[in-house]
């Protein structure tokens, strides 16, 4: 019985997770090193990877800052009623339930060139939709809950006693946060950050809709994979996919590490 279950599980994991990753690697080297290198060295690939990197960095920084602060407010703030906190708390999860395509559509509808807001920004010389700002907003939307969801439970669990103790000892709010709260939540923040990076790097639907997938301008790594597949340029698609997959595996290792650190503290 035991052997059967273990065997089945290993089989499921192999078929569903391990073989596909190996297959990507093989696909990338279909035409040997040359094919792989050619796929990656194309200027559009480099530009797409640059765009993805840029979005990941900006989105991660913004959402980490706001995510940690919002978690603090939702758990600790006395100036928010309990009802309001509950409501906000259930709203935090909304992006999880929104299809990325719909997330993109929302931004197009609110800030697209035909809308009042979009026109306003356009006059000011800023393009939002079909440009970098829109893509960043879309990714911010999609990744928003990740940090909050990691940090909030820990804040609840550690309680406010240590922070109150710091206050009675004369520490300011700022000192209390850095010296007392932060050491308790940092590994959860790291875990949330890793999830955010993964999601921002892999975001496809929302970015595809918002960016318009313009070559050398708004194309990201994932939308380039999509375009290469549509153009039957499978080797190139595989090369980029392999790079992304390598990134994912690295992130996975980071997740494991953050998780183990989180359990220690």
């Amino acid at each position: 019985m035991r052997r059967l279950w273990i065997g089945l599980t290993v089989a499921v994991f192999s078929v569903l997770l391990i073989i596909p990753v190996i297959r990507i690697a093989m696909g990338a080297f279909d035409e040997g090193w040359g094919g792989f290198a050619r796929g990656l060295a194309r200027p559009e690939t480099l530009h797409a990877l640059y765009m993805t990197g840029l979005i990941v960095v900006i989105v991660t920084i913004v959402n980490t800052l706001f995510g940690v602060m919002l978690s603090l407010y939702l758990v600790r703030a006395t100036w928010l009623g309990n009802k309001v906190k509950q409501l906000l708390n259930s709203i935090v999860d909304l992006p999880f339930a929104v299809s990325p395509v719909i997330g993109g559509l929302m931004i197009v509808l609110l800030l697209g060139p035909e809308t009042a807001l979009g026109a306003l920004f356009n006059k000011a010389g800023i393009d939002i939709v079909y440009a970098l700002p829109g893509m960043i907003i879309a990714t911010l939307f999609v990744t928003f809950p990740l940090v909050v969801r990691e940090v909030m439970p820990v804040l609840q669990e550690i309680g406010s006693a240590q922070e109150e103790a710091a206050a009675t000892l004369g520490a300011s709010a700022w000192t209390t946060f850095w010296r007392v709260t932060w050491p308790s939540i940092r590994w959860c923040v790291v875990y949330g950050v890793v999830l955010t990076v993964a999601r921002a790097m892999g975001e496809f639907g929302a970015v595809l809709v918002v960016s318009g997938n313009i070559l050398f301008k708004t194309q990201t790594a994932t939308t380039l994979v999509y375009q290469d597949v549509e153009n039957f340029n499978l080797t190139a698609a595989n090369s980029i996919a392999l790079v992304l997959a390598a990134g994912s595996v690295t992130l996975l290792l980071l997740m494991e590490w953050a998780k183990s650190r989180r359990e220690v503290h």
Partner: protein
Amino acid sequence: MHIEVRGLNKKFGDFQAVADVDFEIEKGQLIGLLGPSGGGKTSILRMLAGLETVDDGDIVFHGKRVNDLPPQERGIGFVFQNYALFKHMTVAENIAFGLEVKKWSKQKIKERVAELVDLTGLSGFEKRYPHQLSGGQRQRVAFARALAPEPQLLLLDEPFAAIDAKIRHELRSWLREMIDRLGITSIFVTHDQDEAIEVADQIMIINKGRLEQKGTPWEIYKNPESPFVASFIGESTIIEDVSALRGFGGSGELPGTKALIRPEYVEIGKEHDFELLSATETGRVRHIHFRGSEWLVEVQIGAAKLVTYRSLEKEILQPGDEVRVLIHRAYLFNDTNSWVMENKLKEDPMPVHI
């Protein structure tokens, strides 16, 4: 620090946690806030610390109203119920925290930490983390941490609640001694009457958000001002019909007056044990329990059942034995009034009104 509290009120939603509490505390005293759980003791303590806002009323430290001061600026030390030690800091770092925040010099911090480590008997544990300490040691760290910045007032929230019964005793006397030595005004919250009686100079009994009585443990024991205090302090049995008891009948009480009788108010024995037999009643022993240092005896007098202690030196009673029972005094109360009454047939015919 001299502390004055006037008309203190606090509501959580619809729940009145603290209602019209007034009191004054002299410098250097150790005060026990005693009462059942959920009675508002901790709320009072947290308002004194500034961790909870005051709905109504004034808190005055040294003649200065501190209602609007944040906890950082009140000059207090607070020992939390579960200690709230900073779990990622060592013992020494925990103690030094308040000093670092106050920007003391490194040298002075080092000296002060060493002094407190010494005082609290934590030498050798400076480098340990809280999870490597026993409950009693954590308590001492919490105490040292709160004392380090030299507060004017020390507040302790159920300081012994999370400690084993055995060590609790030891820690109590240690704390008492420590506070005596430092001469710091201290207030501690507890729901354990033994703890309050043993440690505190003065006890404040808090029930349902109200201050029922304030006084020394002996005063409170001797002259409880309300039925709640009488029943909360010490052991007792309530007798519904007072007039049935010999020595307490016919004193013209209003109907509905009940009596609260403590075990130590009751004396039992054989006929030859008493000089004034007329003041005693006949009772029958129902049960006896060995209590380690004495017997606990349940006696039945008519419809009433009383509990009393009996020395191990005396003749051993058996269930079913007929005994004489002398009730020295009773605490009587009705809806409007309460007073202590001595057995009229014994000596003093006049009840003592409070």
